[in-house]
């Protein structure tokens, strides 16, 4: 799932990811377009956002993810008639509207590989202008949908709503219950973000890291009175461990494990020498979700975690400790601060929330009677706002005209003073003018689940599992390629081919990128794909054609970043713990003891996709220090992409780096697919130093005489550098 905010602006240099999101998704004040209730306790299924300045005016409203257009309504021409239904309260309200249906993937079943697909809708309302769209059109993340409009006379406003049905709230959150269960491990069909450990009471924490074969160090603490929660978050190349009471209050100060992420494979190889690959999963996910077995199965996973005083070492793989991730939308119990809570108010047709979960938060004196004053006061409390942002609420849509009278029946009976018929009619007409649900027929019931849109974006931006369609878009349509001394356009793949490759590879690619912490940031993804595509010819070559005659045969290239040489195969086989084959039945590979034809690739059509990708990610994680993840974190400039090209193809001068044109062009293309760069033209200019000829050229001495190698008597040959300027095609890969 690739998600972006509805307003896309580049981050400021000093801005964190969260700060950037807050800036581009500035939510209206409490009681004025906040989620999920107003001061009057009316359900509000979305948020009002103010379009930020973009240097040319206000940022346009953009699709938050790839989608099919479910509904479009052009805005009504502004009227000065005070009785116009859209002239209500303090001014004009625009009714331009776009509804998008998103269908994507957030993971896959670990056993069957079946994708965990999710469907949700995004609603963009109060648009003052709508792009040329119609129902059924395909739109893509960051496509402009229109311009933010007016709400009651306030300009540059957008009502954004994210909704789904029952089946998809389960697919999205992994549950239908109000709170998370802690009696078993969390979902494995989607894992992203922080890793959580539920630690029952009675667990021992040691003063130092226990060592295998040595007596345990003294116990520092035992949580005899209550269960604890640990949260492991990957921050750059480190991991941060935090401890919480089950009500969400932190215990002690977070402990940083330096280089935990960048050194993942090396740490696993040291700590789990009998099963390093499974060890990577244990350290990464807190559990083994892949097929490589951990040996021994109960191998400890010692981690230093904060305690009330100091720190302690705990075995996170001990029986009784259960593991989760942000994909479980953790809440743990009703008091967990900012925990995700499912609030099902579907049974009430009332426009007002009477849900006990919401009332409890707002009822200041806890007398079970919520007064308007209490509601107003509590809705202004940042802590309460934080809790409300993490409620996922099921209630009737605000946009169904047929239910207005039912939802607002209370106005005629409970409102003091009661509205006069004309007043109610004006309200009704205004509400009806904004409704669209019946006309839209988006395919879900009018009573459905609502997420806080900014929290939804924040949460799912941690999930970089790519759907087949998203992966297909990563393969460019065409590129410029140097042939001889000139660049010319070559077709890389039409959409059908790109999608076919994506379907074939997406499960293996996603699993691997998640395992090796490459799918932690979109920059890491872009760098990895740029290099792997250049190495594999866009997921085509997984064996070295004609490699049987190479000096290193039979250990010639296999995989997406190809393993070569017996030493490389031996290291990788030891890492994976591949089973030894009988040397007498398979003498060809006796030097390594396993069969790479069977386990990696015998040809470009007979291969093990998981292992082909794994070889690439293993190389990426271990080739040199800093590794591929660390180098990707340096940035997304052309220099960074060149650095990764050297990392993969060798630390040579630019003219010696093979395929540098494809590596740089692919990276530039991917910035527009994976990052938040907005395509402003059909091409992007690239100036770079590379070989001036695809063939090596003869070398001459300064006096013009051929430079002859005295040993061979032949003229020396080499690649000569030159500076190229080309316009990289950015044609999006679309059906």
């Amino acid at each position: 799932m690739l998600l972006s905010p509805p307003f896309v602006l580049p981050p400021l240099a000093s801005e964190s990811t969260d700060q950037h999101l807050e800036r581009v998704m500035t939510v209206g004040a409490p009681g004025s377009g906040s989620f999920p209730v107003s001061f009057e306790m009316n359900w509000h299924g979305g948020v009002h956002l103010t379009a930020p300045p973009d240097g040319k005016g206000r940022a346009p409203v953009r699709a938050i993810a790839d989608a099919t257009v479910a509904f479009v309504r052009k805005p009504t021409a502004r009227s000065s008639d005070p009785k116009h239904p859209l002239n209500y309260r303090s001014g004009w309200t625009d009714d331009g509207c776009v509804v998008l249906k998103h269908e994507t993937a957030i993971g896959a079943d670990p056993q069957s590989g079946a994708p965990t697909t999710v469907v949700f809708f995004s609603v963009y309302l109060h648009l003052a202008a709508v792009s040329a769209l119609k129902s059924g059109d395909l739109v893509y993340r960051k496509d402009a949908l229109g311009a933010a409009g007016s709400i009651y006379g306030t300009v540059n406003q957008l009502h954004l709503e994210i909704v789904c049905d029952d089946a998809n709230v389960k697919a999205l959150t992994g549950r239908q219950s109000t709170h998370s269960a802690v009696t078993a491990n969390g979902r494995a069909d989607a894992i992203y973000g922080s890793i959580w450990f539920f630690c029952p009471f009675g667990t021992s924490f040691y003063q130092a890291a226990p060592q295998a074969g040595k007596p345990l160090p003294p116990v520092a603490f035992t949580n005899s009175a209550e269960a604890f929660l640990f949260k492991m978050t990957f921050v750059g190349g480190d991991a941060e461990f935090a401890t919480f009471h089950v009500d969400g209050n932190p215990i002690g100060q977070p402990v940083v494990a330096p280089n935990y992420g960048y050194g993942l494979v090396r740490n696993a190889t040291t700590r789990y020498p009998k099963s390093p690959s499974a060890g990577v999963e244990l350290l990464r996910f807190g559990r083994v979700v892949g097929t490589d077995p951990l040996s021994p199965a109960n191998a400890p996973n010692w981690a230093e975690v904060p305690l009330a005083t100091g720190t302690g070492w705990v075995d996170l793989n001990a029986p009784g400790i259960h593991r989760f991730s942000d994909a479980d939308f953790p809440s743990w119990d009703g008091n967990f601060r900012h925990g995700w809570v499912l609030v099902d108010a579907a049974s009430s047709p009332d426009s007002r929330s009477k849900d006990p979960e919401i009332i409890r938060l707002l009822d200041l004196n806890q007398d079970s009677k919520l007064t308007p004053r209490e509601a107003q006061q509590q809705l202004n409390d940042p802590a309460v706002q934080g809790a409300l942002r993490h409620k996922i609420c099921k209630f009737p849509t605000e946009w169904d005209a047929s239910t207005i009278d039912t939802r607002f029946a209370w106005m005629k009976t409970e409102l003091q003073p009661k509205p006069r018929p004309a007043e109610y009619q004006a309200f009704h007409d205004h509400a009806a003018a904004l409704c669209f649900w019946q006309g839209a027929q988006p395919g879900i019931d009018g009573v459905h689940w609502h997420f806080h849109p900014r929290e939804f974006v924040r949460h799912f931006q941690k999930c970089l599992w790519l759907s087949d369609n998203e992966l297909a878009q990563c393969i460019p349509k065409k590129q410029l390629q140097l042939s001889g001394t000139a660049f010319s356009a070559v077709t890389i793949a039409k959409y059908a081919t790109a999608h076919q490759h994506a379907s074939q590879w997406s499960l293996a690619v996603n699993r691997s990128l998640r395992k090796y912490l490459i799918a932690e940031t979109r920059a890491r993804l872009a760098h990895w794909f740029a290099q792997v595509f250049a190495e594999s010819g866009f997921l085509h070559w997984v064996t070295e054609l004609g490699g049987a005659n190479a000096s290193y045969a039979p250990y010639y290239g296999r995989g997406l970043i190809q393993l070569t040489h017996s030493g490389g195969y031996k290291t990788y086989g030891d890492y994976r713990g591949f089973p030894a084959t009988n040397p007498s039945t398979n003498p060809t590979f006796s030097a390594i003891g396993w069969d790479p034809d069977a386990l990696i690739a015998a040809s470009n059509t007979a291969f093990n996709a998981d292992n082909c990708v794994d070889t690439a990610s293993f190389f990426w994680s271990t080739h040199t220090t800093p590794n591929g993840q660390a180098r990707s974190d340096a940035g997304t400039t052309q220099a960074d992409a060149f650095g990764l090209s050297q990392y993969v193809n060798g630390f040579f001068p630019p003219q010696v780096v093979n395929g540098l044109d494809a590596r740089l062009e692919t990276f530039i293309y991917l910035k527009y697919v994976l990052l938040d760069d907005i395509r402003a033209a059909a091409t992007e200019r690239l100036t770079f130093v590379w070989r001036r000829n695809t063939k090596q050229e003869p070398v001459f001495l300064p006096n013009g005489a051929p430079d002859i190698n005295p040993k061979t008597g032949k003229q020396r040959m080499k690649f000569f550098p030159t500076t190229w300027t080309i316009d990289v095609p950015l044609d999006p890969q679309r059906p």
Partner: protein
Amino acid sequence: MSFLLFLSILLCAPAATPPESSCSGDEARAKMADALYRDDDFRGYVCEGKKCSLDEFRAGVEYHQETLRAKPEVLGCFVEPVNKATSLPTGFFMLKHAEPELQFIFVGIGLGPMPDHRVVNGYEVLVGSERTDPGTWSDSYYVWNGKAYVLRNTKTRGERQAEVTRASR
């Protein structure tokens, strides 16, 4: 008891020192590393484009030995970076009177004797393999001409396959 004594002697015995006339000798290795350190591209690869000392460079290369001719024995030393990218330099030395003499540096996937140990002019033919783009591999063949190893030809595997196909018709 006597077996244990034998075992303890065996365990305490110093490791056999490689003969100086092999690629394993400290002096030969030092000379080969010195020669490759002077090559900008080789040093640039091992040092990742940054400045590094000769000692750091020496720690970043590994050696292996091949017999180029059986009788009288002629040895070749192949020096490669420890960290192998998808393209890497290989320094090829011949040992002449225990002195390593740099023949050439090959840049590609790898360089060494052919798998079938083909011999021309009494010496092993060397093949260096390179991948210039994802679907194009080429092999460069080096033969002994009586004085030195010289490049005989470079062919893409596609070209070679086409030759084989033509020849079989």
